[in-house]
């Protein structure tokens, strides 16, 4: 029996696949990119140290330049850089947080130019952005988070989220990688979306291990958390934006995000306004639990968390249940959240980076080969289709 167990462990450890292909990958010099190009000038030694010692949260200074269609649209903006992210910081191409010295005036859409902005959002002033490696999707499609967020934007959901697009990033004129430039989901990001100062924002983040009070009125956050622990529904009704909460829970449970709700969740309020939840980092979606029903995704028995608790406090009320399922049905029945609306977004993002992903593969072997990139996109689309079927059947 011991031998069998040993053999099992051995085979498990070596359970792997390695692809090779004849595909002739493009080199950086061969790509005539249509993507925006970012060039950040930094002290190279400082930059390398920041990348290597990413756990030390080192901030360095730099100068930010950006080209659109070959035209310099942002020149020498002073910025602070920092490596951001959780597990994905272990990848060779890391996510960079970029904070402008002053709020950047994006009214001409030179920094971020999304195809659509939700009516309650404003991206004219931007304090900070993120050059994201697509999180855990870095070795896979490089577009899952962007595509799923775009679907939520196109659906006009009552959500607060990030706006982004893929860009080519250079460091001191040397090619660094393909990253997704997006607005922040933190207090800077929420202040920007609502056109207020960061000091007006109260924000807390739910992570796997703890609730982190980030900014603002910590007593209010404590009171909100205490009300969840005590199941104080009346207090929570006064403090929570229910319509936003319903849309947020519907969307996350629809896309079956496995890195949620115990993680990648945050709520915020502007001044004394109600708490709203922010949709961000969707790279854990459409993976392991696409066959689970929405309530099962929300329940998340693996990691007890206050978001699950909050939902089920409300869910005890019949009026909330009705509102939740009616909204779910209306979004699905009208085809607002659907494969037919998702596939064009993925196709567009795929075409945008088709040449550039080859440079990424050349430099980082992430994903390993073009065939693996295609496999991962295929899985993303197929799992969405499967999810659509599962949820539609359940919701009906």
């Amino acid at each position: 029996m011991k031998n069998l167990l040993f053999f099992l462990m051995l085979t498990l450890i070596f359970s792997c696949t390695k692809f090779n292909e004849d595909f002739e990958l493009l080199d950086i010099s061969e790509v005539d990119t249509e993507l925006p190009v970012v060039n950040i000038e930094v002290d190279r030694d400082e930059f390398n140290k920041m990348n290597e010692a990413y756990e030390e949260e080192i901030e360095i200074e730099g100068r930010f330049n950006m080209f659109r269609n070959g035209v310099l649209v942002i020149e020498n903006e002073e910025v602070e850089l920092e490596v951001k992210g959780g597990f994905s910081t272990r990848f060779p191409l890391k996510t960079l947080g970029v904070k402008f010295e002053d709020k950047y005036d994006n009214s001409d859409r030179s920094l971020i130019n999304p195809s659509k902005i939700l009516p309650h959002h404003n991206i004219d002033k931007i304090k900070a952005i993120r050059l994201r490696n697509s999180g855990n999707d870095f070795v896979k499609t490089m577009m899952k988070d962007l595509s799923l967020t775009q679907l939520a934007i196109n659906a006009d959901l009552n959500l607060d989220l990030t706006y982004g697009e893929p860009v080519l990033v250079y460091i001191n004129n040397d090619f660094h990688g393909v990253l997704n430039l997006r607005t922040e989901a933190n207090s800077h990001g929420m202040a920007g979306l609502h056109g207020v100062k960061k000091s007006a924002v109260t924000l807390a983040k739910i992570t796997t291990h703890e609730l982190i009070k980030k900014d603002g009125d910590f007593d209010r956050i404590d009171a909100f958390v205490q009300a969840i622990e005590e199941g104080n529904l009346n207090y929570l009704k006064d403090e929570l934006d229910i319509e936003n909460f319903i849309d947020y829970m519907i969307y996350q449970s629809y896309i079956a995000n496995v890195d949620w709700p115990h993680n990648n969740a945050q709520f915020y309020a502007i001044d004394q306004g109600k708490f709203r939840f922010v949709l961000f980092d969707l790279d854990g979606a459409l993976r392991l639990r696409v066959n689970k029903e929405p309530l099962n995704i929300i329940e998340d028995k693996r990691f007890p968390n206050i978001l699950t608790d909050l939902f089920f406090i409300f869910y005890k009320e019949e009026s909330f249940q009705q509102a939740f399922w009616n909204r779910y049905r209306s979004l699905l029945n009208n085809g607002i959240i659907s494969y037919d609306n998702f596939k064009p977004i993925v196709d567009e993002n795929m075409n945008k980076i088709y040449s550039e992903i080859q440079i990424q593969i050349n430099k980082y072997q992430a994903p390993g080969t073009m065939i693996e990139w295609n496999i991962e996109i295929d899985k993303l689309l197929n799992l969405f289709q499967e999810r659509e079927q599962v949820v539609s059947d359940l919701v009906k």
Partner: protein
Amino acid sequence: MKKIYLLLFLFFITSDVEAQPRRSIFLNTGYSFNNSLQINNGKVKNSRGYVITFGGALRLFSFKKNYVSLGIAGKTIFSSGSRNGEKFNASTVRFVFPLRITLPLTEQWRVSTGFNFQNNLDFLDPDFRLGYRYLWRVDYSAGMKYLLTNQWSLTANADFNIRNMSDAFFLNDPKFSVLIGIEKRFHKRRKTKK
């Protein structure tokens, strides 16, 4: 379907009480292929592979002359194909639990049928913690066995995947396979009375 597999698995495991332990090791090799695949709107041609499987099996229990066995094996697949004219190949290692019922036809011939439960998780994937829904693949397997001696036999098997998964999961490990191999059985030594 998942529940049926689980029940079958538990049934055979719990039946161990009645078992007459007899072990075997086996080595199989053969050809695997896909009929038609489409990956991200691109047609995949000549998707095929060569398979080598090495492992051991334990007889769980027997009834009359039939017996049920559960094994564990390492499976290596060298696959290849082309998508939109671009050729690719892949090397894959997986572990397999073959669950079989073997029935005698004659003194020397046996037929077997059962399922191969195989992991689909890739440990080279830095993000393997999140996995995909299809962590397991299940193949139906049918085969013949010719007993050369009391200990050695030749085997032939045909396997095919029965889980409904997207084509993307079969590029490195095709749906159908035909294998031949050799098996060595270890009989339990019986103590003779003096």
